[in-house]
Every structure is written in C-alpha cells, then in structure tokens.
C-alpha cells in the first residue's frame, strides 16, 4: 500500500460509503454542541420528525454566552437565557449529556473535550464552531461545521465530506525562551496568510512541534482555521498518551494499553506525500503581535506598524489601509509604543492551566498599570479554574489587579457582557482580531499569554524576552 498520511488513515477508518462523483459518507465519533449554533438544528430535526441517532456520542456544553461572574444570579440577557433553556430542553428530551453552566466540568467545549478525555487520537470530531480544529492536537480529525451539518450529524452520526488536500507544516529547530505555541501559530499564519490553508487539512510536525506540551499543541491546532484550514493535527506520541492517561473518559488498565497502541498507529507513514509543504525555523520566531483586522496581519514585537504603500498588490494595500484606519494606527509606529486599554487572558486558544501559569509568572509581584482599564483572566474550564486556585494563581492575578472570572468564551467573542468598548484597544490571547469581534468598534491585538500579561503590567506592548521570564508556554 502507498504510504498514507495521518489524515488519510483517519479518513479511511471512518468511511461508511464511497461512490464515484459523490462526497463520501464518513462516521463521526464525537459530536460537541453548544448553545450558540445548535437550536436551529434541533428545530429542523423535530420538524422533519427525525431522532438523534447517537445521543451517547453527543456532548452539549454551555460556553459562548455564559456569564463569567455571579452565575448563581438569574440571567438578565433574555436571548442568551432562551438559548440556554433550549439547549437544556433539547439535551433532556434526547438524552444528550449536558455540561450546563453550573456543572463543575463546564467550560469552553474545546478545552473540556480534551481535558475529560472525550477527545482521543484517531477519532473524527465535529462541532458547530470553527475552532473545533483544537482537538486535532490529540491526533484526531476535528473540524467546524454549520448548523445544517449539525442537524445532519444528529440525525445520521455521519457527514457528507469531500476529501481535503493535505499540508505539512514543519517547524524545525528549538523554540527560544519567551516564544510560545501562540507565537509559532501566528508566525505560520503570517507566512502562509489567512487563506493559505484553504481546502487543506494541516499536519504539524518538526522538532519544535514535537517539543510542545499537549496544551501548546492545542493552541497551534486551534488557530488552523485562521490560516483557512478546517482542521489541523499533530500525530499522537508519548506526550499524547501520557496526557490522556487517567482522564475520566479514557479507558483504564489493560484497556488503556490497547487503546494507546491503537492511538499510536495514527501517524503518517514515512515518505507519505503531502500536497503542500511549508517549513519554518522556530529559532527565528520572535514574539508576535497582530496590527490589523485579521490574524495574518501580524509582525514581530520588535517591528513597526507596516506602511500599506509597501504592499505591491493593490488589494492587499487597500486591505492594510482599511485595517490601519480601523485600528487607528499610524504606519511606522513601533509595536512596543502601542498603548493598551484592556487585557484579556482566556479563550479556547489560551486559557488552559499552562497558559495561566505562564501569565502568572510574568505578573507575580507586579501591578497592572494604572493606564489599564481592565485586565481579565478567564479560565477555559472550571477544572482549570479549580486547579489554578489550588496553585494560588488566582491570588497572584488578583493581587496584581486582574479580575479572576468563571469559565467561558467571554471577551474573545463578547456574547456575554465581557465586551471591549468602542475605540478601545486590547491585548488579547484569543484567536480573532476581526473588526468588531470583541465588541463593536473595538480594536484587538492578538498575542501570547506572556505578552498579554506583560502588556497589562507595562500598559503597552513589550518584548517579553527583555523581561527574563522563562516561558515554557
């Protein structure tokens, strides 16, 4: 047999039906749903008189609109409350396991899936959320779908899919101190552009990827969609196996060994062919800061805001002009001179325990700058929150002047009341700096947790490498 990629192996292992000229029918092992994109799918299902085929493989989470404080109080946002009620009702009627906002395992679906071991190598995973690519860090094929496809998966536990092209992104070399998984993925997006991965599934490889912890790999895979790729994945290895051992949904004892052996078979064969190969040298990556209105508009912290005139392509030039106007930035401004109003540490990209530990190392013993209006830390899950509190991280943050919140998507998307006000500028560990993403008229700069924490202390961006903080993540 010809050498196969990891993607090819998972695809093959999930083929229910193949016919010439038609999309394949592939089986879905795990289906995550949340309050934001699922109500219409259940309504459609009911209208057609159809049932949920495998409620046991479907997991519901409240994350997008949940309040991050005073959760014991009634929800004042009536539209959000209606969504919570509908999800609760749908889960109850169909027997789907729901982690509601009061569950001690609640959190952002892409944090909780791996954390509970629901996500495992070799699986196919979908969710009505584009950052489902996160789960690929465990060697699963995971991607975001629309609401019509949610309905399709609820009804059939399958999805009609055309085969994707494959891209190998190899990050060789050793990651310097202060450079995190976030900087790696931002550098990749800066290199290939936000449509560079369109039509592809990315496999990440190379020394710098293999050296990442599982949480770092999740950060990288999370933002695959920001490069246009629906899925990103890292081949499972001993790091993956060690991470999964003992997780609640993971088999134990002899069953664990058997599962681990099977998981480790989901790696690309030597000499497997990829449609596209991209190479980066981790040693040359600097801390990254976005300056524009998409994640590809990114540069080194040591650089300056670019001059749109430098872009030869008229479409790119006009895009950069519009972005700088929206961001209220002047070409040539050093990145480190950009002042910040608010800092957000959280989101499915960077809200795991290692992210919080890294940020806490920067913050410990310091104070948030008086020019900062708000500095928020929002753990990705309640399990992360409890762990952080056991380690005393919450006190480090609050003593420095950060607010310590409950788990959810929060200011990454601003569907609850954690909103970046018009005209204000954030240093944010989230994944999208689109116009209005964190709130209408708001201005987002994407950075790593180390860089966000440092910006909170300094009141503007700084080169974290000058602070002599050891940055594992």
């Amino acid at each position: 047999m010809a050498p196969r990629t990891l993607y090819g192996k998972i695809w093959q292992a999930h083929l229910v039906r193949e016919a010439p000229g038609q999309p394949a029918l592939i089986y879905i092992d795990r289906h995550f749903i949340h309050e934001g994109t699922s109500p219409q799918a259940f309504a459609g299902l009911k209208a057609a008189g159809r049932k949920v085929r495998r409620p046991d493989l479907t997991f519901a989470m409240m994350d997008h609109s949940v309040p991050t404080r005073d959760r014991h109080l009634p929800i004042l946002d009536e539209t959000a409350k209606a969504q919570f009620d509908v999800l609760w009702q749908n889960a109850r009627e169909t027997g789907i396991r729901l982690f509601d906002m009061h569950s001690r395992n609640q959190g952002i679906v892409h944090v909780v899936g791996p954390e509970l071991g629901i996500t495992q190598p070799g699986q196919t995973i979908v969710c009505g959320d584009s950052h489902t690519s996160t789960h690929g860090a465990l060697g699963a094929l995971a991607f975001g779908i629309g609401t019509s496809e949610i309905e399709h998966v609820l009804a059939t536990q399958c999805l009609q899919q055309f085969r994707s092209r494959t891209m190998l992104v190899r990050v060789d070399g050793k990651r310097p101190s202060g450079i995190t998984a976030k900087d790696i993925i931002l550098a990749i997006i800066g290199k290939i552009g936000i449509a560079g991965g369109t039509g592809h599934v990315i496999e990440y490889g190379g020394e710098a990827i293999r050296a990442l912890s599982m949480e770092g790999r999740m950060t990288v895979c999370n933002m695959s969609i920001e490069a246009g790729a629906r899925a990103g994945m890292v081949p499972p290895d001993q790091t993956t196996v060690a991470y999964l051992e003992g997780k609640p949904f993971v088999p134990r004892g002899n069953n664990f060994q058997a599962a681990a052996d099977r998981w480790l078979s989901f790696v690309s064969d030597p000499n497997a062919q990829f449609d596209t190969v991209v190479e980066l040298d981790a040693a040359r990556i600097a801390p990254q800061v976005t300056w524009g209105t998409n994640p590809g508009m990114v540069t080194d912290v040591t650089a300056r805001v670019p001059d749109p005139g430098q872009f030869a392509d008229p479409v790119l030039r006009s895009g950069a002009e519009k972005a700088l106007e929206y961001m209220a930035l002047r070409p040539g401004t050093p990145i480190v001179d950009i002042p910040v109003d608010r800092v957000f540490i959280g989101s499915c990209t960077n809200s795991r325990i290692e992210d919080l530990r890294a940020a806490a190392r920067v913050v410990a013993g310091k104070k948030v700058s008086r020019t900062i209006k708000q500095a928020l830390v929002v753990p990705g899950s309640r399990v992360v929150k409890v762990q952080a509190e056991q380690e005393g991280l919450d006190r480090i943050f609050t003593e420095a002047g950060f607010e310590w919140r409950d788990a959810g998507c929060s200011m990454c998307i601003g569907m609850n009341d954690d909103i970046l006000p018009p005209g204000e500028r954030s240093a944010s560990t989230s994944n999208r700096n689109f116009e209005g993403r964190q709130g209408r008229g708001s201005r987002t700069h994407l950075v790593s947790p180390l860089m966000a924490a440092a910006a909170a202390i300094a009141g503007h961006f700084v080169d974290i490498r000058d602070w002599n903080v050891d940055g594992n993540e």
Partner: protein
Amino acid sequence: MQPFDKHTGLVAPIDRVNVDTDQMIPKQFCKLLTREGYGKLLFFDWRYLDGGAPNPEFILNWPRYRGASVLIARDNFGCGSSREHAPWGVLDYGFRVVIAPSYADIFYNNCFKNGILPITLAPDQVDELFRRTEAKEGYQLSADLMNQTVSDGNGLLFRFEIDPFRKEILLKGLDDIGMSLQHEAKISAFEKSHPATAEMFEPVDLYKVEN
C-alpha cells in the same frame, strides 16, 4: 431547501478581501433561535450607524443597489466563524447568487445547504464584473446553474466550474439528510465494527462530580 435553477438580478459589489462571517452577522445576533430574520442584520456594523440609522456610506445602502440579489465579492469571502447565520443573512437579505474569486471552506459549504449559489470565477473575470457594475446603474447578471454560465445580456458570458454533485443537490433542492439516511444499513454495519464507537468508555471519575 429551495432549489436553484436560474436567477437574474441587480448586482451589488462588496469590494473588500477577506470579508469574514463576524462581519456578515455579528455575534450578538447569534443568540437567536431561528433561521429566518437575519436579512436586516446582514453587515450590521458597516450598514448601520451607532444610533441605528443606515450608514449612507455603506454601499448596500446606496439607492442604486437597493433590491440587489447578486453579490460580487473578493477573495476568501466568508472566512472565520462557522456560523450559518452568515449565509442565512445573505439569503434573507435577498441574495441568491454570490460571485467571488475564492471562498472560505465552511461558508462555501454552508451556502449549498441554503439554496445560495456561490460562483467562483477567475480574478480578472471578477474584476470585469466590478467594472461593469460600477459603470452602469441597474447592472444585472444572470446565473444559469444548469449551463454553468454567468451573463449580462450585453456580450458578457462567463462559464464557471462547480462540483457535479453539489450542482445536482442545488438544482433539485435535495434534502441531504434524507439521502444519507438511505444508507442506514451501511451506517449500522459500520457502527458494529468500529472501535472508537464500540468502546465508549463511560467516565470512571468525572472529577468526582455528577453534573
């Protein structure tokens, strides 16, 4: 889903690359429970001023583009979030056809689930459509899915490529869930032999918490 065969209508241009789905339908409207009613919310932040009045500078608010049903756009249209609210908004506004040099995958896929025809043309062909749209008020285009053509009745005729399966689905307005359910026997057989579903491990210790 409503079938798509042919459509002729007024063209409106969005001359911007990388238009993301957050821009089409901002997050605060992703809290609704319906698939309908998103037309008035489409491009909300660009379309309305802070007080809620229409922004006269936004192109869809120009009187000459009122009633448009063909949208021409630039590269990577529909990038970002998977929200299907974006194509719901496009359709509910009145657009049946989108024409661009390239699309983001999820948005492209979502269009077909909603009876919207997303046509891909070469960049210079899209440039030509922008020129003609801007030059002539009331400029109309016809899209013919069966024959895979775009024409303006004034000498312009472009052929476009589309996957034959997707074409068929759209032409007939087929229910793809119903189609997949016809393979019930295969799905059931697969489930019996597939390890990842056969071994569903119930949580041994859900952090010692029932939820």
